[in-house]
């Protein structure tokens, strides 16, 4: 009697499993896989089945695909995302934040695709097309970077570290772009790295020192390069200029360090604003 009951229970479980699997088969297992080349992701790109018992909101599957580009007549690498192996949970607390985290996984893959493209270009110029070993090495590095990203940002749960990774990844992408990441202001001679292109503002009104200001507000921070003409004969006014900046902006100075430098003058000043945000500044005078 006991055995018959066991068989019955087993049959019921089997039937239920079939009933559950049928829609899954219909919606996913036979669903066409699409590989999306690197661009902004949307939630529709996540068609996979959510991992059972996972504590995370989503997961992305991306990789590097090498194709023959018949127009350019060379092999080219692309970062691609697999829609059926990428998944999300139906209910998410902050879907935009989670999607952004996944986007940066895709961006990390794009970094490695660009590195492979540099390699492909160099070997193809020499008539070589054997990229397999390089691809294997890059795949290993890619996986390590993806793990480090998830580990340090705690899968995005550590907001500050998530932002730091976004800065790092954007910086690498910018460095591997045509612009090479560096910004040179040919009026001031300043060269500096911004992770993405900053906005440029000009101050040309009489009564203010002519200045050129690059500003980028992103990653939960604000990055600014302010440049103004400051002539040799005004040099004695530098400390006043610096003090005045903090006074006008109601910033409370926390520390001030003079730097032994190759420039004519350099000082680092940390302060905080009225909302307790830290305002770090590096002042350099050089003629």
């Amino acid at each position, binding site marked *: 009697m006991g055995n018959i009951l066991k068989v019955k229970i087993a049959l019921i479980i089997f039937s239920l499993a079939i009933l559950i699997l049928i829609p899954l088969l219909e919606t996913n297992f036979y669903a066409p896989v699409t590989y999306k080349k690197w661009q902004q992701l949307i939630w529709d790109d996540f068609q996979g089945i959510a991992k059972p018992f996972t504590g995370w909101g989503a997961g992305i599957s991306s990789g590097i695909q090498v194709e023959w580009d018949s127009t350019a007549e060379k092999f080219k690498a692309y970062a691609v995302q697999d829609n059926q192996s990428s998944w999300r949970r139906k209910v998410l607390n902050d879907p935009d934040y989670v999607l952004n985290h996944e986007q940066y996984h895709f961006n990390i893959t794009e970094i490695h695709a660009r590195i492979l493209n540099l390699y492909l270009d160099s070997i193809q110029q020499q008539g070589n097309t054997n990229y397999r070993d390089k691809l294997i090495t890059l795949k290993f590095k890619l996986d390590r970077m993806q793990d480090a990203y998830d580990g340090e940002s705690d899968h995005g749960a550590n907001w500050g570290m998530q*932002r*730091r990774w976004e800065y790092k990844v954007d910086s690498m992408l910018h460095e591997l772009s045509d612009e090479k990441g560096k910004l*040179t202001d040919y009026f001031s*001679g300043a060269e500096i790295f911004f992770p993405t292109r900053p906005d440029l503002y000009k101050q040309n009104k009489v009564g203010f020192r002519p200045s050129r200001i690059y500003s980028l507000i992103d990653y939960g921070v604000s990055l600014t390069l302010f440049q103004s003409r400051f002539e040799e004969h005004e040099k004695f006014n530098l400390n006043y200029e610096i003090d005045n900046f903090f006074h006008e902006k109601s910033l409370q100075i926390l520390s001030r360090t003079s730097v032994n430098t190759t420039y004519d003058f350099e000082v680092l000043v940390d302060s905080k604003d009225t909302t307790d945000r830290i305002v770090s500044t590096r002042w350099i005078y050089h003629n």
Partner: protein
Amino acid sequence: MLYRLSFVYPPKEDGFGAIRDSFFNSFRIVDVEGYWFDKNPEPGERAAVVSRGNACIVNKYSDYFSFYSGPYIREGVGLLIPSDVDNFENTIDQTVAIVNNTAYFASPEEEHQMFFVPYEDLPDKSFQVNFGFILKEDSAAKCPPFNYQATWIEMNSN
């Protein structure tokens, strides 16, 4: 030149110190003089490059101070002042540099202006350069207003 790098971030968050250091440490100053001299067209290559002479213009201290680079002096070539004055909506008729009461006219560029004075015309001693522009709307006047700013140049005596 004064440079200020600012980095504003929320307190008590991991990761931002590393971003600040990366941003601050990426800064350096490069020599841009060669860039501007390479960009400056040879006299004669530009439509109305440096015509010189006495001009009837009315000095009008500009309410628009441009950020300029230099001034640069290259021996045998001349004085060059690149300025970030935009020829906004094509409003500038001519750019003018005045040295020793001689005016050097040039047709305006689109994105920035290049003030140029040939080397042979530069004084041996220190001198002032007034540089600026005449607007199209003023150009029909007999003595149009010259919107200018000035810089003082110390010549090396050796």
